[in-house]
């Protein structure tokens, strides 16, 4: 019995291997009905992605969102009044601001009712979790709580003003459009009044209005001004609060007008 030995050279092995890969690729490309998940691959133990609910955004939703922001402002001022070192003029102003925000919240509630919605009497849960609670926590451990409360109050008034400014354009009901534009103007006055109460004439007009840079205070925190731009801004704004860390950096938060993630939809149950 003889055994015929088949000898395959290294060059032939490369040829066979290359041919096999090419044919496999061709077959795979021509294949039909290839099943499987078309979503991007996921690694590790990340929770599955859930699609957000598709809720309708109507005037009632926008007005409920406006109410939530006003209630949030009332809650923040009530907590701010507990902080020492604000001074009597600022305390008196904050008490006036609480009354004004409550009045606007009531007005937004009445308009919500008129639009067939249920008035929202709670704060905004999205803002509470992502802005209010972390900022108040940073202020509690701050090297200068009075400075931070001042900056937070101005930022909050600016946010409320720009939110109402946006809503005055987006709402369709004439009464609601007028009410939100009134609220935007009132809360712009609030912001300016806080700055003037704290800084006097130095805080009248931001250099940014005439195209110059905004200076920072001795702690490196940007100064606030009563008139900060020629036109009312609806862009995001930065708030810096808290003590500096070992690198001299303080916590920074971005404030944005409410959007799909922070709207108070008609389907949401009260959180208070």
């Amino acid at each position: 019995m003889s055994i015929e030995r088949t000898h395959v050279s290294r060059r032939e092995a490369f040829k066979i291997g290359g041919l096999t890969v090419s044919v496999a690729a061709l077959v795979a490309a021509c294949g039909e009905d290839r099943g499987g998940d078309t979503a991007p691959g996921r690694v590790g133990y990340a929770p599955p992605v859930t699609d957000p609910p598709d809720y309708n955004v109507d005037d009632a939703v926008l007005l409920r969102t406006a109410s939530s922001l006003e209630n949030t402002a009332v809650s923040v001022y009530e907590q701010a009044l507990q902080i020492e070192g604000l001074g009597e003029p600022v305390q008196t102003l904050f008490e006036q601001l609480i009354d004004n925000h409550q009045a606007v919240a009531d007005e937004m509630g009445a308009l919500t009712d008129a639009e067939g919605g249920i008035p929202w009497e709670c704060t905004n849960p999205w803002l509470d979790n992502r802005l209010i609670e972390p900022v108040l926590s940073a202020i509690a451990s701050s090297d200068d709580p009075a400075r931070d409360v001042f900056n937070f109050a101005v930022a909050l008034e600016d946010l409320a003003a720009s939110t109402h400014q946006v809503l005055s354009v987006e709402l369709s009901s004439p009464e609601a459009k007028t009410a939100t534009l009134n609220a935007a103007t009132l809360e712009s006055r609030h912001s300016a009044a806080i700055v003037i109460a704290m800084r006097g004439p130095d805080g009248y007009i931001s250099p940014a209005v005439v195209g110059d840079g905004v200076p920072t205070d001795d702690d490196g925190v940007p100064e606030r001004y009563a008139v900060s731009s020629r036109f009312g801004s609806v862009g995001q704004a930065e708030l810096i609060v808290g003590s500096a860390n070992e690198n001299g950096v303080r916590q920074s938060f971005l404030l944005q007008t409410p959007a799909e993630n922070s709207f108070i939809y008609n389907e949401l149950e009260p959180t208070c």
Partner: protein
Amino acid sequence: MTSKGPSPVDPQPAETSVSRRSLLTTLGVAGVASAAAVAIATPASASPPYPTTEADRDLLSRTLRVELAAKRLYDDAVASGIGEEAAAVAEVFGGNHEAYADQMAAITGISADTFDEAFYEQRAAAFASGDVVEFATAAWELENSMAATYIDLFNDFESIDAHTVVSSIVVVNGRMATVLADLAGVTAFGEVLRPEAEIITLSEGENA
């Protein structure tokens, strides 16, 4: 193909008689069809137009002239020798009003070259007095009036463009008024935050 001849049933009756029931049915079908056609042609809630409309242009041509008159009033205040601090405020606020006129011109295509003379004449003396408190009080009242007027007119504007521009001006009117209240020595927060204001009567313009 073989013809099968005329149909044994005449499709066109010699006399068309319409009963009351068939008339109502016909009208009902026509009504529903018309309503359906209108519903398809018109969205359920028609969105406002984005660019300014003819009505917007008429209104904005008048407010533009008021803005230019305000710019002129602040220029007079600067020239009157009201002191460095008040003059700095007047210069920037005058610039703001000029920018508002320019913006209105930009969205309407109207030239920003004519000011409202009647509006200017009513306030010129106080702005040019050279007295800080008199100037600041007059300017405070002007900003409050402009804010109140824009809010009053807001629903008369039709386009998103006009609403967007006007809303972005009103909020700064409120801020400028708060600064001027401080400069004028108005200290009561209630008066500063919720001031009484007179609505401006806009004069008829060239486009009106």
